């Protein structure tokens, strides 16, 4: 027991760095949410006023709940566009085609590209008048499928989510592929001899060991979406798209804290409040994830 206590000392250097660069800034930021602060000048302590304002006062609460709703919507679209696609691709690459270096590279390249470049290039491609997407649709006779992709209230969010999914699918494919490849080939051969159909093989042989990977993919997606700012900003600007349709917590924070394009005053205090709420959303989800993982591990033993 004494030896273990001594081991704790080895954690001290890492803990100091962690505290200095992560823990303390986090706490200080959260502290700002209790103040009225424009970013420069004086800070006035106002207790929970910012929180009250965010949750109950118009127009702040409208914007806030809109942003929260949009973020969850973004998450849902991403889960489908990105992760379901990734699973299907991973299955195709490992159980279907031979996994060639070509496919691996092609699928993974978007992950390596700069976010701003992606946002910028895609927003040009999606331009209703000069953009490539609508041109192609017209050229193959689907003219009435052309849209103002980023300009339409109903389409803007799914469109941005789709571009985000396009970028990160490759990463999730890699995780799924690693998971599937760790299944011993003998199990598949035994199923072949039994004559099991593809669905049965997927349900009983592939899916069960993949559950932890699905968990990791989900929590990574969740965290990524709640931190989302760059892509939305690059594609529709800090105003959050047409009528705030793409306004996620990240862009809402940016606008509030630093002042918006419409000449809004910067409000650091309120911004910090939004950041704190975002942190709580993420922390809660991670807590739930860790708890569920722990329960599952215990169940296995």
């Amino acid at each position, binding site marked *: 027991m004494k030896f273990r206590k001594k081991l704790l000392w080895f954690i001290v250097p890492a803990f100091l760095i962690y505290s200095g660069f992560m823990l303390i800034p986090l706490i200080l930021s959260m502290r700002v949410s209790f103040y009225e602060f424009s970013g420069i000048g004086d800070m006035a302590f106002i207790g929970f006023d910012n929180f009250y304002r965010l949750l109950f006062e118009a127009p702040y609460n409208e914007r806030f709940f809109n942003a929260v709703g949009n973020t969850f919507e973004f998450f849902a679209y991403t889960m489908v566009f990105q992760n379901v696609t990734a699973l299907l691709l991973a299955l195709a690459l490992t159980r279907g085609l031979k996994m060639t270096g070509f496919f691996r590279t092609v699928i993974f390249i978007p992950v390596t590209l700069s976010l701003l470049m992606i946002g910028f290039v895609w927003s040009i491609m999606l331009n209703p008048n000069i953009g490539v997407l609508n041109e192609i649709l017209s050229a193959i006779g689907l003219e009435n499928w052309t849209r103002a992709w980023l300009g339409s209230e109903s389409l803007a969010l799914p469109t941005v989510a789709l571009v985000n999914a396009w970028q990160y699918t490759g990463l999730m494919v890699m995780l799924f592929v690693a998971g599937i490849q760790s299944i011993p080939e003998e*199990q598949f*051969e*035994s199923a*072949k*001899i*039994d*004559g099991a*159909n593809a669905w*049965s093989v997927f349900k*009983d042989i592939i899916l069960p060991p993949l559950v932890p990977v699905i968990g990791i993919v989900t929590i990574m997606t969740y965290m990524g979406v709640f931190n989302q700012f760059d892509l939305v900003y690059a594609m529709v600007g800090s105003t959050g798209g047409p009528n705030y349709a793409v306004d996620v917590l990240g862009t809402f924070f940016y606008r509030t804290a630093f002042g918006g394009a419409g000449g809004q005053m910067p409000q650091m205090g309120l911004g910090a409040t939004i950041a704190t709420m975002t942190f709580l959303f993420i922390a809660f989800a991670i807590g739930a994830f860790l708890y569920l993982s722990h329960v599952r591990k215990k169940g296995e033993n």
Partner: protein
Amino acid sequence: MGQIDLIDISKSYDKQKNVLDEINLSIEEGEFFVLVGPSGSGKSTLLRMIAGLEDITSGTLKISDKIVNHLPPKDRNLSMVFQNYALYPHLSVEQNILFGLGAKKVNKKEQQKRLAETAEMMGLSELLNRKPKELSGGQKQRVALARSVVSEAPLCLMDEPLSNLDAKLRAQMRIEIRRLQKRLGLTMVYVTHDQVEAMTMGDRIMVLNDGKIQQVGKPITLYNEPENLFVASFIGSPKMNMGKAVYSMNQNQLVIEDTLRIAQGPDMDDIPGNIDLTVGIRAEHLLPGTAENTTHHLEAVNVEQLGNETLIAFDVGSTLWMAKWLGQWDVQVGEMVPVHIDSGNFCFFDSNTGLLIKSANFVKEQEVVSI
């Protein structure tokens, strides 16, 4: 219903080197047939080709007189047991056993009936609700066997199923598998690298080396009359003692490894004198010499007491010869031990081709005794 014919079967992965070379073989219905050979000999590949898990590069494969080269595994009416058992970790023992039946759409009542019978037969009735990770090695093996049995396929393929078990369990499972096969009348094709398993389990065995058939036949035939040097040294434990032999100048002595001189006897008359010879003699034929029949004295360099027998190693020229004597003999290392070597117990091989010229002739008088 379960008879297998392999006609000129060859396999290569890169069109350059053949992993299996023109294998011709017929396995009879209800036979326990063992494919044995060292690692890389092609035995697992051959088994997997029968199963349909590997493509056949050239040649014809027939099961029950039907050409099956392009038939997928599930249509070949066979079952397979894998070396690492291939149990599905997230299904219970019961679900593992019934998996194949579910895939084949056997009706539920029939499934339960077969499950009950098989679980009883394999001693698994108490373990049906456990998951594979809660089972011991032997239990996992029995679940894998149960999966095969429950499919009621007439042909069963086994790929080194006992390799992951300890020696005692292996000896026990050998008997269980053999009894199971006899009881159900299955045609079984069994792959192993262990020659003891081959000898004790097979009705007929086939020794493979480097993709080529070395010999096919009853285990005892391969033991007594090995067709070439490879089979002679592969089958039998301890290995058959081998040595290079030349006739002495005046042709009435055989000199083995420049050390042992054997007087020429009538059994050596038909051996050509002008080829390179290798002789072989089994450990149990290096007999302890009595006052009357000692032919040589050899220096013991190692003695192993097993309780029921004693193994003594002798230096013979550049090789080590092992003698196996029944009982507990008090031999010390360094002692000059009297032995009796009879040239009638020698197998003669051509050193260059490796082929048998003449087998130990006492065998012919001493055919396996029937009661």
